């Protein structure tokens, strides 16, 4: 009896499998040692190891004795949780329960940065289409720029399930790398004088509870009337927020923010890893998608900062936006707001940009979901 019969996994191991196991270990290292999105990168990394051991029972295999397919648990999870979009939508309920919209009520004009900083999505989609991807694939790659993992997963699972693995890894990795990606782009686009601009706003304004309860309901109705196909994304986000704000479901709100978010993220991560098999992941496409994801994040930042500078042309001295705030229009919350606040403090220790940065960042969370909804609506018309 040869080694092939005794240890068929060793016999079936190729260099591609070893590379994927190495990538899995790298993701686990980044999650543990660097604290890069550990709730997601750790399960994805472990899952990548799980699915790249030849004949892994975690994946569907053909039984050589009977010739029948034996369902693997990760394939079952994929069909049940991602192909149906249940996992990402449950995450939206959790995210909705975590978001406090009161900073937006204090500085509503900053909501517009949440639109400008989605620029990278569409520019990346254009670039991907030039590189030969079809419209659905290009849109799925572009949505990495939403800086919002669940939105990326919903769009990619619907339009390009074959690219789901690299798109998810890119989306979550770059979200963790916002402190490295954004500062050099911002410094390149702004002068020191601009970075020193102080922003005063209604940071201590009290917001009525009724308004905070009405907001998710009204937004859902309005978004549903304008773009019904965006409702699964926006509706679940707003439902989670209503649970938070209503005041009578506090235990449920805390469960959504903690247990639901943790459990679904765990399942989401390890299930995404089922798409990271060597034959699907080790391709030139993966490298291109990773590069395009970085491009998307850079041009999101560009869009937000340039939009702030544009608005400043029309604003009086003393009432100008600090253009760095524009960069917070991406969805990576609260990482981006924290980065901008720290950059502001570095230039001037008495410049407190945290509150306006948080407001723009909350706007970015809405903007990314709206962008996902718009892409889900528009692409089928043109594809």
């Amino acid at each position, binding site marked *: 009896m040869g080694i092939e019969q005794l240890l068929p996994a060793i016999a079936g191991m190729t260099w591609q499998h070893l590379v994927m196991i190495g990538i899995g270990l790298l993701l686990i290292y980044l999650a543990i040692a660097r604290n890069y999105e550990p709730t997601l990168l750790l399960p994805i990394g472990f899952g990548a190891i799980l699915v790249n051991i030849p004949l892994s029972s975690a994946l569907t295999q053909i039984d050589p004795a009977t010739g029948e397919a034996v369902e693997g648990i990760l394939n079952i999870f994929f069909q049940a949780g991602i192909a149906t979009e249940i996992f990402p939508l449950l995450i939206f309920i959790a995210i909705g329960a975590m978001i406090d919209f009161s900073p937006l009520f204090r500085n*509503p004009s900053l909501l517009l940065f949440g639109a*400008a900083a*989605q620029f990278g999505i569409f520019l990346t989609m254009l670039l991907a289409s030039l590189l030969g991807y079809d419209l659905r694939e290009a849109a799925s790659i572009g949505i990495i720029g939403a800086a919002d993992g669940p939105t990326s997963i919903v769009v990619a699972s619907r339009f390009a399930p074959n690219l789901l693995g690299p798109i998810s890894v890119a989306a979550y990795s770059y979200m963790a790398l916002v402190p490295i990606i954004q500062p050099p782009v911002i410094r390149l686009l702004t002068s020191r004088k601009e970075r020193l601009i102080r922003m005063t706003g209604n940071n201590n304004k009290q917001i009525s509870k009724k*308004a905070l309860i009405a907001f998710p309901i*009204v937004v859902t109705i309005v978004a549903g009337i304008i773009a019904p196909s965006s409702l699964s994304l926006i509706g679940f986000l707003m439902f989670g927020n209503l649970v938070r704000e209503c005041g009578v479901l506090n235990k449920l709100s805390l469960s959504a923010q903690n247990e639901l978010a943790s459990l679904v993220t765990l399942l989401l991560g390890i299930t995404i890893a089922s798409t990271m098999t060597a034959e699907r992941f080790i391709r030139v496409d993966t490298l291109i998608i990773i590069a395009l994801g970085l491009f998307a994040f850079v041009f999101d930042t560009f869009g937000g900062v340039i939009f702030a500078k544009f608005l400043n042309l029309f604003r009086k001295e003393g009432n100008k936006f600090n253009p760095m705030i524009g960069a917070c229009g991406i969805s990576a919350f609260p990482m981006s707001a924290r980065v901008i606040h720290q950059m502001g403090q570095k230039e001037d220790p008495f410049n407190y940009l945290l509150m306006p940065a948080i407001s723009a960042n909350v706007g970015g969370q809405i903007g990314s979901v*709206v962008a996902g909804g*718009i892409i889900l609506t528009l692409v089928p018309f043109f594809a």
Partner: protein
Amino acid sequence: MMTPIFEKALLIAAIGMAGIFLFMAIFYLLILALDRLMPFREEKPAEDFFEETGTEDEDN
């Protein structure tokens, strides 16, 4: 350079960016409207409420 896919992507990009700004502008107006229709009012602390109305035990 201008492949049919790129042309469609360009159109989606233009409509998409305009659409996001439109949505956000609507949400901006919604916030202003909600803030005006439902302004913050100082709520009475619970203790004051009970002092004024009395509790069931006191009534009995």
